[in-house]
Each structure stands twice: as C-alpha cells, then as structure tokens.
C-alpha cells in the first residue's frame, strides 16, 4: 500500500465513503508503519480506535453477579401477545354465543309462558349443548395452552341457570294464572 493510496483513502474516510475493509487498512497502516510527517496528524485518531476495540469489563465479579441475578428471575412462562388475542377472541365468542342462546331462550319462554313443557326445556338444553360444543371447537382451534375446563364451567353455569330459570317461569306462570292451580292443565309440571 503506497502513500498515495493511503492519502486517497484518508480523503474518502473523512467523507464517510470508505468501506470497512479500507478502514481496517488505514488502522493497520497507522499502527505498523513509519508515518510520513504530513500524515502524522491522523495517527492519534486511528490508534485510538484500535485501542478502543480492546476495552473490556474489568469488574471480576461481573459474571458471578449476573449468574446470581439470572437465578433469581422467577420462571414465569411469558404469555405471548398473540396467544392472548386468541384467548380473548375465543372467550368473547363464547360469551356472545351464551348471551344469544340465553336471549333466545328467554324470548321463547316469554312467548310460551304457560306452556313450559319438558319437551321445550329439552330442546333448549339440546341447543345449549350444541352451543357448548361449538365453543369447544372454536377454543380448540384457537388455543394452545388454555385450560378448556374454564369454558366448560361457564357453560355448565349457564346450563344450571337455565334449569333454574325454567322452573322459575313455571312457578311464575302459576302465579299469573291461579286458575291453573285449581284446574291443572296437562301442560304444566
């Protein structure tokens, strides 16, 4: 590498146009060679950068301290943002289905207040069971590690409440139509 080349590279260097290879050439030149007078002003800069590369952590306890702190970190499986979104979507879908089914169920009940037959209750329960299966399907598709029993519990509660509701409406119908008590029709139980 002749002096003219070095001079050219130095020009490029201050314009920010040298490659990493060329910069290494400059650093090597100033490190290893007798530097001509007119180029001597550049030597401290390149020597400085060469030296800075060797700077290290001098604290002898660093690794040990870090080890200890890593051990202190609790083993929490961090739930990634994506799986949280899937979970929330599944639960939201489940709730919507639940609300829709219950809403429908209440509408049916109010239409046929005095005719709450075991058969009617059965078909609603069937609808409910189907909704539950749909939710399981949805949640199985979306979820990886979420406890599905949580969703089942929501539905079991719903089922419970529905059963309570149906008996409530039967009694309510008796109160509204007291004649039923005296002349029980074959419809009520």
């Amino acid at each position, binding site marked *: 590498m002749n002096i003219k080349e070095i001079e050219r590279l130095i020009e490029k260097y201050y314009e920010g146009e040298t490659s990493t290879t060329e910069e290494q050439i400059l650093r090597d030149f100033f490190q290893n060679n007798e530097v001509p007078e007119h180029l001597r*002003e550049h030597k401290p*800069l390149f020597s400085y950068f060469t*030296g800075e590369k060797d*700077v290290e*952590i001098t604290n002898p306890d*660093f690794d040990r301290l870090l080890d200890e*702190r*890593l051990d202190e970190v609790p083993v929490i499986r*961090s739930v990634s943002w994506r799986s949280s979104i899937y979970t929330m979507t599944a639960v939201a879908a489940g709730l919507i289905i639940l609300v829709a089914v219950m809403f429908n169920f209440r509408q049916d009940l109010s239409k046929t207040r005095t005719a709450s037959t075991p058969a009617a209750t059965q078909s609603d329960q069937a609808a409910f069971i189907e909704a539950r299966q749909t939710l399981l399907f949805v949640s199985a598709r979306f979820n990886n590690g979420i406890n599905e029993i949580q969703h089942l519990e929501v539905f079991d509660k719903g089922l419970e409440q529905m059963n309570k509701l149906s008996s409530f409406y039967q009694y309510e119908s008796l109160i509204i139509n007291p004649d039923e008590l005296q002349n029980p029709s074959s419809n009520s139980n």
Partner: protein
Amino acid sequence: MNKQEFQIQVYPLKNKLFRFAKRILDQTEEAEDVVQEVFIKLWMRRETLAEYRSIEALAMITTKNMCLDRIKKRKYPVERMDNHRGYIESLPMETTPDYSDEISRIRLAMNELTEQQKMIVQLRDVEGYEFEAIAEILDMNENAIRVNLSRARKKIRETLNNTRIYEYQRN
C-alpha cells in the same frame, strides 16, 4: 433456551455491549449496570429469542434504549434565580479535561459529539459494523448514517487541531 445455552450465545456479547454503553454514558459503573440489566431482560424473554434474526442486534438496541433513558433521567428541571427553567446534569463527566495526551484529546473530542454521532462512530470505527447493521440498531437510513459519520469524523479532526494549537501556544 436453558441457562447454559443462554450463556454460550449471549455472554460473548458483554464487552461489545459494555463499550457501546460506556460510549453513550461516559460512566464505567453505570455502563456495567446497563449490561447486567440488558442480559436480564434478554433472559426474561428467552422463550421468544429464537424469533429474532439477530440476538446481537436485539441486545445492542436494548442497550441503546436503556442508555438513552438513563441520560434523559439525568437532567433535572431546576428553578434558577432568574426564574428561567434550567437543567443540571447530575453526573460529572468521567473523562476529565486533559490536553496533554493525544489520546485524551480524542476522548474529549468524542465527548463533544452529539449522542447520535457518538453511537455511529462507536459502531463503525470501533466495532466495524456495516451500515446495514448500524441502520438496524439506530433505526436510521444508511445515507443519514454516512452523512453523520462524515460530520463526526471531521469534527473530531477539527477539535484535535484546535486543542493542538492551544497546546502549542501554552508551550
């Protein structure tokens, strides 16, 4: 990723991260603290580390952000006597003015640079990163990096020449 794998993959980065942090903060102990914090942060995220193209880039970016946050916190708003809001920097510069040595002069000259210029010079002139890598770490485009690098290098040269003249005059 278990602790051993983590140590094999991530520990080798520690000195590079330290140099980077020290360049930004100009404080040795604080830079060491930052490197510890960065490792712990990476350890907490070890399950998702495989998703990253480059753990080194992630570590450098995390270091940068942590250092810049600390610098922000150094400046305390202060009511001055003339009722103008002023700011004081609470930490003394570790690099003390010392014009005697060429190397010290360069260290001082580097402290005169803007934070961005310091980072660019560190990543390019000390660590030898390509512009693409620097762009990823600093979130800048390559042209802007080149321009700032040129300015920084010229500024250092200028500062060196000025303090050199000063030194000659004193003698």
